[in-house]
């Protein structure tokens, strides 16, 4: 009865002792079930934007693009093909990726027109609207200059997904919040299974103590002799 929980605690304990050597402290657990359990699966609305044949999804300051997750704070305004790669624009930041999806730069307040950005489009360069004025970025997205607002058509490029579609896309937003180290620690202590798990872990430990003490008692105590004769 006690053997299986004891084995479980022993194995997780050994793993815990070597998490750094095994690289488990840096490795995230990529499981929807675990993410849900820890409350790390975002519940907010999911927004979709199209870049040619590919689609980008945005939910709660996270952007999902070609199977990778990126941090992007603010309200999502869309993604655009630019000469350097792809630029994803939010009201607070612009994330620049190369064609392979590697992050080149995350442009913040110091690199953008007065925040928040209100709209974005691509017409002979990335164009954004901020504080009622339009600005066009240079080809390499280093500088920007004000341009006439009337010259651009700001089509709606971002759409909120319906609940049924969102539930299919949501697993893409399983982040890297829980490391294997933390997950194994919670399994080892029983905390992962709530109060029941903790009580089971306590029971296992108490049983180990009982077995140790009773074993020592049996070892120290002289053996009983059966009958009166020798």
């Amino acid at each position: 009865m006690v053997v299986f929980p004891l084995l479980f605690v022993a194995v997780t304990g050994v793993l815990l002792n070597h998490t750094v050597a095994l690289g488990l402290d840096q490795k995230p657990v990529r499981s929807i079930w675990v993410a849900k359990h820890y409350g790390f699966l975002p519940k907010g609305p999911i927004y979709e934007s199209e870049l040619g044949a590919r689609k980008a999804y945005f939910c709660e300051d996270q952007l999902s693009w070609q199977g990778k997750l990126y941090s992007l704070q603010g309200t999502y305004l869309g993604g655009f093909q630019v000469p350097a790669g792809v630029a994803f624009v939010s009201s607070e930041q612009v994330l620049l990726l190369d064609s392979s999806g590697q992050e080149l730069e995350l442009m913040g307040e110091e690199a953008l027109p007065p925040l928040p950005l209100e709209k974005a489009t691509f017409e002979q360069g990335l164009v954004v609207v901020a504080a009622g004025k339009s600005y066009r970025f240079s080809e390499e997205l280093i500088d920007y200059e004000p341009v006439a607002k009337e010259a651009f058509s700001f089509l709606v490029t971002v759409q909120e997904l319906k609940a049924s579609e969102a539930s299919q896309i949501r697993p893409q937003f399983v982040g890297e919040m829980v490391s294997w180290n933390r997950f194994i620690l919670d399994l080892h202590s029983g905390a992962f299974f709530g109060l029941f798990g903790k009580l089971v872990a306590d029971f296992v430990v108490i049983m180990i103590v009982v077995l140790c003490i009773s074993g020592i008692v049996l070892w120290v105590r002289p053996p009983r002799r059966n009958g009166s004769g020798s």
Partner: protein
Amino acid sequence: MALQKKINLTSGLVTLSKNWQQVPSVVRWVLIACVLLFGMGLSHAEDVYLKPSDFIKKAFRGSLPPTQVLTLDASAQKRAEKIMRRAVRPRIRYWEKGSRSVWILEEIGKTKPITTGFIVDGGKLKEMRVLVYRESHGWEIRKSFFTKQFVGNTLTPKDKLSRPVSNIAGATLSVRAVSKMARLALYFDTIRS
């Protein structure tokens, strides 16, 4: 008008403190809970001490030089990643005038990024300033008793700071984060242009 409001608020607080014992205990507990909740709310808010763009303007006394971009090659990126112990984006924006360069860098303290401004002049840190702090603990790193430790620091051949930076109890992760950023700013300054 504003002065009148201030007087009203002050006199209200004085009256409340004088008659505190007469206030029903339920109301007292509700007031205490409100103060605590408000305090907790404040401690988790994003604190913008100085906008990054204002820090850059201040560094150049109002005249903003053109934006420069430093693109890291593979070896520079590897060295930067060794300093930060994480992946580093290869494109870094900075501003320069003569021997002075300004860097706006971000690093996660415990869970959220700390935005910090660095002024490097002639290979030495001239100023370090915490611009945006988003963590709930460790905000003490923005205080001058801590930031002034960075002034005059240079980068050693092993990519360490030339003078040690004292830790702040309860803000260890934030101290580590800004120390790493200081080293990175000094390294970037050596390879710019």
